[in-house]
């Protein structure tokens, strides 16, 4: 079972999927090392879900090749299915059934005997904090509970590769953190995770390597550090006590930090987009800026540091923001898929 010689969990070359006129996935090359979390980052309609569906043997590629643990996703689909689990964007459990019934059903389909399936279902519900809701139909679950039961269903048999397609979209911050904890626990046991997300901070929290996808193509790939370096270190947002000194402050920031400075509609606020050329972290650069401003006698009422956002990654990588990307693509592939 684990004698695959390649250390790659996923390897694709020129993967293509078209829906009518739309090239939803337009030549994607991925190399996902086994045992890691690999983030696929992109806006709605970028082709993330379609890519995952091809890798999970749900869609047949129209071109290119994809191997999961060395097995071709088309010719050896069954081999692939035995090794992967998918947690889709929409709950991949049966909403009409209870939590227990869902897990027992899947346990049986994975070949467990009735007793073993029941036992495993009970243990999973317990571990996921769902024991109280075990007898309730999933349609009465909250968003956070659905994701939990969904992920529980995915690890009934510990998969070698787990696809998590936007696992936290629509969740409140608290539930999102809980899902992240689960993902970390799963990866700690050696499962490879392919995570798609629209949020850079999610990829940042979990993934070791990230591919940015837009218009069905990988437009950037690398470690978190590499990717962030390409968009700068982040932003620093300042509010001055005296709006009249804003032009002066902007000039100082430009000089001291080599940053692009933007004046906000609020007449006392300004934002500096920090560069990464110096290798300093955003915090180091920000403290330098504050010291400069203090020396000139400009009082800062309030300041905050911002991580580079997905929008900024996109702006830097493509020259257009995610909303344009979304409009241009009409969300077509996500719907068709």
């Amino acid at each position, binding site marked *: 079972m684990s004698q695959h010689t390649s250390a790659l969990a996923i390897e694709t070359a020129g993967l293509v999927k078209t829906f009518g006129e739309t090239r939803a996935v337009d030549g994607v090359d991925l190399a996902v090392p086994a045992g890691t979390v690999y983030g696929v980052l992109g806006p709605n309609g970028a082709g993330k879900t379609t890519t995952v569906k091809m890798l999970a043997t749900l869609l047949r590629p129209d071109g290119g090749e994809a191997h999961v643990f060395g097995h071709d996703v088309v010719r050896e689909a069954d081999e692939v299915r035995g090794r992967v689990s998918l947690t889709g964007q929409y709950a991949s459990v049966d909403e009409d059934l209870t939590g227990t019934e869902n897990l027992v059903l899947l346990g049986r389909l994975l070949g467990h005997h009735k007793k073993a399936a029941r036992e495993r279902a009970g243990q999973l519900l317990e571990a996921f904090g769902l024991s109280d809701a075990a007898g309730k139909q999933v349609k009465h679950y909250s968003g956070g509970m659905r994701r939990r039961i969904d992920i529980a269903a995915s690890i009934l048999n510990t998969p070698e590769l787990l696809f998590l397609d936007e696992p936290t979209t629509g969740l409140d911050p608290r539930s999102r953190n*809980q899902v992240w904890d689960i993902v970390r626990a799963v990866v700690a046991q050696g499962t490879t995770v392919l995570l798609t997300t629209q949020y850079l901070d999610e990829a940042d929290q979990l993934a070791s390597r990230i591919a940015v996808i837009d218009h069905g193509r990988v437009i950037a790939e690398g470690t978190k550090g590499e990717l962030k370096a390409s968009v700068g270190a982040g932003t620093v947002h300042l509010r001055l006590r005296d709006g009249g000194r804003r032009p002066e402050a902007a000039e100082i920031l430009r000089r001291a930090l080599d940053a692009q400075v933007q004046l906000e509609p609020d007449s006392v606020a300004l934002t500096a987009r920090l560069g990464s050329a110096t290798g300093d972290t955003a915090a180091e650069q920000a403290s330098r800026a504050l010291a400069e401003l203090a020396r000139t006698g400009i009082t800062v009422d309030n300041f905050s540091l911002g991580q580079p956002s997905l929008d900024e990654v996109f702006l830097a990588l493509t020259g257009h923001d995610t909303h344009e990307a979304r409009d241009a693509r009409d969300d077509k592939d996500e719907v068709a898929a």
Partner: protein
Amino acid sequence: MSTATQTEAQDLAPVSAESLAALLVTGERPPRPSALSASLTFGWRAILKIKHVPEQLFDVTAFPIMMVLMYTYLFGGALAGSPKEYIQFLLPGILVMSVVMITMYTGVSVNTDIEKGVFDRFRTLPIWRPSVMVGYLLGDALRYTIASVVMLTVGVILGYRPDGGVGGVLAGIALLVVFSFAFSWIWTMFGLLLRTEKSVMGVSMMVIFPLTFLSNVFVDPRTMPGWLQAFVNNSPITHLSSAVRGLMAGDWPADEIAWSLGWAGLFIAVFGPVTMRLYNRK
């Protein structure tokens, strides 16, 4: 949906990382289930759905009762002198007609169910692919059996006395359920082929009405014009209702049974692969 907000994440017990880790480590990997076992498991899913939404049994209880009462009293006096005499002839036929009509709900439920996220999961399981559909139809076979029992009960109350006794009646129901199981593959095909529930209903009606009415369910085909007899005498529904009628009357209509099973085999052979092709492409 509105009830979802009642249970917020705040009330949830925390995820236990240690027990989760233990579960992931100990996870043994059993051999894949056999085709039969996977199909039966999906059949169990269908039964669970009935358990949670018992209202869906309406079409296999109220509808058949209505059919027996309506046609017995509507046609009984005119066609056989009295409802009591007519029901001896009608009941096996109306049984066939009602159950075959009920099969069309399979298409509707496949159509609405297939769009759900859980099918993505089923499709990524290393199991015998048709087991999902077979499971559906096994659950439906239970529904057909319920409908048959309900109709027979009503029939017996109205005065139907099968000469074949319990054995003949059971044999008749068994043949009917087997045929309906096979016939349902037409609907799984339409359920996957057509885009909306409404169009599935529409097409099903177009097929089912002529097919069931143009048969020997209500009257002897010898009273029909020649061109219609040609159709009626070769209709699978006519063969089936003759076979069921014979079995329940205590005969052994070997020819009609063979014809019914032959048609059943043909339906599976043709519509089974088409259904699976559509399912794999979805």
